[in-house]
Structure formats: C-alpha cells, structure tokens
C-alpha cells in the first residue's frame, strides 16, 4: 500500500459495471427525454385553466352519492360480478389444456408451438380491443364482455400454468411414472399436486383482474359496471361515479384479502 498525501476514500461500485454502457445509457435517456418532451404538446394554458376546473371537478366527487342511482349501480356491479365468475371459470378451464400443451417438458414440439401461439395471441391485445370486436359480433351485453375476459384469461393463466409445470420437480414425476401410471394418472398424481396451490392463488388473482377489467369492457358496450360508470360521467353525475369507484375499490380489496386467506389455507 503506497502512502500518499490524500486520505483514501471509498466509493460504492456503480450499478452497471461497464462504464461505456453506463454513460451510453445516460446519454440515450437524455436524448430520448428531450425528444419526447419536445413532441409532447402540453397546452400549459389549458392545464392552468384546468386547475380550478379540476378542483371543482374533484370537489363534485364529494360526497359520493350511493343512493340516487342505487338501482343502476347495483345492477351494474351485480352484472360485473357474474361476468367475472363465469369468465374466470371458463377461462381457467380452457387454459388448462393450453397450459399443458405449452409446457415444454410435457408436450411434443408441434403442440408446444401451437399452444404458445395461442397464448401469445391472446396476451397481445388488451381486453378492450377484444371486447370491441365481440360487441360487433355478438351484439351489446354481458356475453361479449364475458368472451373478451375469458379469452384474456386463457393467455394469462395458460402462460403461468405452463411456466409452473416447466419448473416442477422432475423426480416426483419420474417416480409416479415408474409405478406404471397411465398418462392421465401421471398428470393427476405427479403434476397436479405440485402446481395446484400456486394455481389456486393465481386463479383468485385472475378473478381480481377480471373484475377490474369488467369495469372497462362496459365502456365499449360489453356489459357490467363500465356502462353505468360511463353514463354517470356523461351525465356529469360525478358523485355517483365516485360511489361506483369506491365500490370497485372495496370489492378489489375484499377479493385481495380473501385470496391471501385462501392461499394460506391451501398451502
């Protein structure tokens, strides 16, 4: 250790070790942000003008009015709930074969590729785009929303199921196979017990997502609380809208709490 006049100081190592990459990323970020803010046409006049309007707007949300539109709100929430139940059940049921097919350690390559393609396609488009098309095909109402949510569920649940199966313990699977089990017995006694606890948790999580999305498919006519919400916005009845939003938040919190409870019980 050479003795120098300066006291030695320690500097923490940077997060990205490669100096060239680090500075390159900073530079890229700076260039991108200048470009992005350059094309972001913020009409500050409109924003400033919007501040008192926004205050009035936010004030008109309070107090939330649960009573004067209670019938419509109740019908909407109720419809959202059945859409959620049916689409989660059907979506999960359909995603089991897809998920099995999309697990590399279970299926032959052509099946694997086909199932991965199904998963990728149904994951790409947001629920609302699916809902627009289903409303065109099946008419207004909860059926279109139900189909959109089920299809989105297949992509989400099938992908996670496949990943979970790929990560399972192969030793148990081999042990069951060594007893001479048929393919279905093997699936039922070796694969299913390993993935089930996590899958129940994910099913509840998807239920939660489907409920939140069911509030959106209504905006394009797919049934559920979204239509009620849009109507209350269009009629400037913001206090009813606030009531709807609060009910959605309460139900989401309830489902999240229940799913935590069920997950602990299953595991």
């Amino acid at each position, binding site marked *: 250790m050479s003795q120098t006049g300066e006291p030695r100081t320690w500097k923490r190592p940077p997060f990205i070790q490669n100096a060239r990459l680090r500075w390159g990323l900073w530079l890229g970020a700076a260039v991108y942000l200048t470009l992005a803010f350059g*094309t972001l*046409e913020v009409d500050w006049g409109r*924003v400033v003008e919007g501040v008192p309007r926004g205050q009035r707007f936010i004030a008109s949300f309070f107090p939330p009015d649960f009573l004067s539109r209670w019938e419509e709100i109740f019908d909407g929430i109720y419809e959202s709930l*059945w859409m959620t139940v049916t689409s989660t*059940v059907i979506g999960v049921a359909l995603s089991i074969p897809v998920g099995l097919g999309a697990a590399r350690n279970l299926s032959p390559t052509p099946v694997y590729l086909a199932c991965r393609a199904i998963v990728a396609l149904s994951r790409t488009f*947001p629920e609302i785009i699916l809902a627009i098309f289903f409303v065109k095909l099946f008419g207004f109402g*909860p*059926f279109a929303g139900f189909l959109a949510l089920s299809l989105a569920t297949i992509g989400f649940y099938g992908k996670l199921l496949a990943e979970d199966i790929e990560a399972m313990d192969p030793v148990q699977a081999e042990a069951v196979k060594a007893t001479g089990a048929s393919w279905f017995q093997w699936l039922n006694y070796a694969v299913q017990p390993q993935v089930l606890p996590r899958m129940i948790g994910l099913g509840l999580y998807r239920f939660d997502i489907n409920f939140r999305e069911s509030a959106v498919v209504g905006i394009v006519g797919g049934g559920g609380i979204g239509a009620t919400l849009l109507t209350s*916005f269009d009629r400037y009845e913001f206090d009813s809208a606030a009531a709807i939003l609060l009910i959605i938040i309460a139900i989401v*919190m309830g489902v999240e709490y229940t799913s935590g409870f069920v997950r602990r019980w299953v595991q």
Partner: protein
Amino acid sequence: MAVRDVNGLKQWQRRERGKQFAIWAAWLAGVAVFTYCWQLISEKTIWMFVLDSPRQAADLAERMVPPKWSYMSSLWVPLWDTLNIATLGTLMAIIIAVPVAFCAARNTTPSVYFVRPVALFVIVASRSINSLIWALMLVTIIGPGVFAGVIAIGLRSIGFCAKLLYEAIEEIDPNQVEAVTATGASGAQVLSYGIVPQVLPAFAGITVFRWDINIRESTVLGLVGAGGIGLQLDASISTLAWTQVSLILLAILATVVVSEWVSARVRHAII
C-alpha cells in the same frame, strides 16, 4: 394416513374422509354459483346474434384483408406518442412510487399505524382503477391529448410499482442494514448504503416489467381521447374503415412483441 377398511383389507386413499367431503362441498358450491351466473348471462344474451356470429366474423374478416399498407405513413406519429405515453407515464409512476413504497414497507415506514395504512390505501386505489377510467377522468380535467394519457398511465402504475417494490423492501437482509447502522450512519445514509443497493435490481426489473405492460395499455387510451394509436383505431372503427383497423392491429402487435422482447432482454441482463 388415509386408510379405509374394506372387507378386512386396508385400502389406501388420497385424503381423509372429512377433507374429501370439504373438497366435494367446495366443488358443489362452485358449480352452483357458476350455473347461476351463467343463467343470468344467458338471459341477457340474444342467442340469435350468437348463432349468426360466424357469418358476421367471416364477413368482417373479409373486409379486413388486405390491410391498407399505405395508411402506415400516418401511423408513425401516433406510435411515437404511444411510446411516449408508456415511457413518461412509467417515469412519473416510479418517481411517486418510491416514497410510497418506503412508507408502506413494514421495516422502513415512519409509522406503522398512521403512515402505512395511508400508503396501502394509495396503492390499492391506484391499482383498482383501470388506466382507461383514469384517462376518462383526466380528459375531462386537462383536455384530450397525450398529456392526459401520460398522467393516466402514471396514476395507474403507482400502485403496481409501489406494491412490488415494498414487498422487495420487506424481504431485504436486515444484517446488512444493522452493519451500516453500527458504523454510526444517519438514517439517510442507512437508506442509501444499507437498503437501496439491496432493492436496486428488483426496482429496475419492476420498472421494465411495468413499462412493457404500459405499452400494451397505452395503445387503447385513445379510445377515450387520451392520445396514442388508440385515437386512430377509434376513428377507423367508427368510419368502418376495416382495412385500416387491421393495419393498426398489426402495428400494435408488432409494438407489443418488440417491447416484450426488450423487457425480457433487460430483465435477463439484470437478474
């Protein structure tokens, strides 16, 4: 051990009798609820339209091909807007989500009884309301355009980023924090040398993951007037320009695939 006596022979079963009954009852209840819900939907559906739908779908598909490739020239600007909405929205979200996450994590919150519940409520409220609904509200306040989209994506992402981040903070190794505290470091120094380095990889992963989701969500914000390629989609659907619609859908597909690839690469490099 679940063993049953059958004519003096012991037979193995997978579960005890009580557990078997509980599972059976849960299935019965589930099937009953599902059947009831299905019946309600079925009552509200006009099955005539459903029967007719294959013909409609074929008709629509026929009108959608071939995509009108020349329309692509007017899609570049909306695509750039979409990218900006997702990126700037994510940026805004993480700036707000970091303090919220530190307030919500049990081991860093200033007060478990006052600050933590507020932070948790912020997280749930932001997560429960879809970005389209945030956009619907913001378009009324600050007018239609990209800016409303950025704020909507930002507000929606706060909850997601803060939730994953506070879970990461709660899982940190307390020994390192204790070691830094033992050197006589102040609170801010403990934060910056003991906690932040432990959560930084998770933080970067969460940000890129959310950015990828936001690209997907920002493609539809235009449906309620908040900028991006959704505006073109809405306009093309309303004018029944189906060849343009198919091109827009292809453009969205390509964008999502690219963003997913980028996000997977970056996360792979970090973790």
